[in-house]
């Protein structure tokens, strides 16, 4: 169960593959459910050219570990990995990666979605968008 906060761009498929390679779970997992959130170049009708992701270092990790513990209590999860980007981000760069390994698909799907929804609801990240017009705006909760 690993939580990573990245200040530089990350390659989600490299992260997952490397993490999986060191798991020593060969033959034990039948299901992997993955979600990747990527920066778009548009939001709420406006062109966006960059974004800054602020976070509350320390609380972020504490909240994500708590969310994972709750998911582990609800579903039979073998492993999970959460990676979240902070700092200055450009369109098409990954923002978040959630990956869950389990024996059966229902648990992997449910736990991955739960982790992602809880992360969005509770992890202390804030997005500041820079529009094509050079205006900046804080993304507000949808």
């Amino acid at each position, binding site marked *: 169960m690993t939580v990573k906060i990245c200040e530089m761009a990350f390659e989600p498929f490299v992260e997952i593959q490397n993490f999986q390679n060191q798991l020593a779970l060969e033959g034990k997992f039948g299901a992997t459910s993955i979600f990747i959130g990527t920066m778009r170049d548009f939001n709420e009708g406006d062109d966006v050219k960059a974004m800054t992701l602020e976070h509350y270092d320390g*609380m972020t990790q504490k909240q994500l570990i708590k969310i994972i513990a709750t998911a582990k209590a609800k579903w039979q999860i073998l492993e999970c990995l959460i990676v979240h980007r902070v700092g200055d981000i450009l369109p098409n760069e990954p923002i978040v990666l959630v990956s869950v390994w389990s024996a059966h698909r229902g648990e992997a799907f449910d736990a991955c979605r739960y982790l992602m929804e809880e992360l969005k609801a509770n992890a202390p990240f*804030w997005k500041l968008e820079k529009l094509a017009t050079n205006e900046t705006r804080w993304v507000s909760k949808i």
Partner: protein
Amino acid sequence: MITLRYFASLRETLGRSSESLDIFEPHTILSIWQLANPDLALPENTLTAVNMDYVPRTHLVHDGDEVAFFPPVTGG
């Protein structure tokens, strides 16, 4: 002494990201805000945390705590 931290749009509004405050008895979160920001009501949608866990505004803050105020989160 307690540490106050502000994030995102609230940090910008206040013009500072952290500060210290001496308290000589426990105060609620709301009372801490009023001591630190006497000219500004705590914005309605502000989230509050003590020692990196979410708490309600009625939570009692003790000496040594880290108290954070921030707008709704928008990660993911």
